[in-house]
């Protein structure tokens, strides 16, 4: 499986500011995904990022709030804009890791970015 790193690992931010989270993979991947894990809740997909095209956002998430860049096959960024305390979460990136005999790929996750908004 791919080795995935995220920066920063954690941050404390003020309301109204923005934070950009970086995700780096040690091999080229077509699809990268961004998830949010709010305290005590399950992981929720924010958007899917293809290299060379606009990100596809899930219901409830918009580009103005969570702009995503995907400049190449090993890197992506997620920006959390105009933050409020409700944005305090763990943000995770994931990549597909290939199939093991089935008809869909397994996703592998980075270590996450823990964001606290005051």
């Amino acid at each position, binding site marked *: *499986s791919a080795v*995935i790193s*995220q920066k920063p690992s954690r941050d404390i931010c003020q309301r109204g500011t923005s934070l950009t989270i970086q995700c780096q993979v040690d091999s080229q991947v077509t*699809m990268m*995904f961004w998830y949010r894990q709010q305290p*005590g*809740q*399950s*992981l*929720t*997909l924010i958007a*899917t990022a293809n290299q060379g095209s606009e990100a596809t956002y*899930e219901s409830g998430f918009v580009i103005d709030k969570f702009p995503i860049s995907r400049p190449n096959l090993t890197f992506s960024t997620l920006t959390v804009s105009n933050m409020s305390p409700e944005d305090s979460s763990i943000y*995770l990136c994931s990549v*597909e*890791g290939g199939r*093991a*005999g*089935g*008809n*869909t*790929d*397994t*996703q*592998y*996750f*980075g*270590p*996450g970015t*823990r964001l606290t908004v005051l």
Partner: protein
Amino acid sequence: EDQVTQSPEALRLQEGESSSLNCSYTVSGLRGLFWYRQDPGKGPEFLFTLYSAGEEKEKERLKATLTKKESFLHITAPKPEDSATYLCAVQGSSSGTYKYIFGTGTRLKVLA
């Protein structure tokens, strides 16, 4: 709508006390069911992918099974280092090509 429910929410076991975690799912056209382990402050670590009912996979003290309605993660003779949150996710044909639907997890604590 695709849905995943995990039970119990939390489980405390003595070292060596075997048990099972449950993942019940409702999905249109199951493409895959996934088990992950998540330690505090870390990202989910992949454990297993199951594709069809009747399939089983094992890794050390863990064994995952799948039926048409649920999956079990059996833990045999657990050790304290097995303490973690175990997450289940499904991917269905109606949820888009890549979208995973996650359960809220089972927090496992194994006491020495």
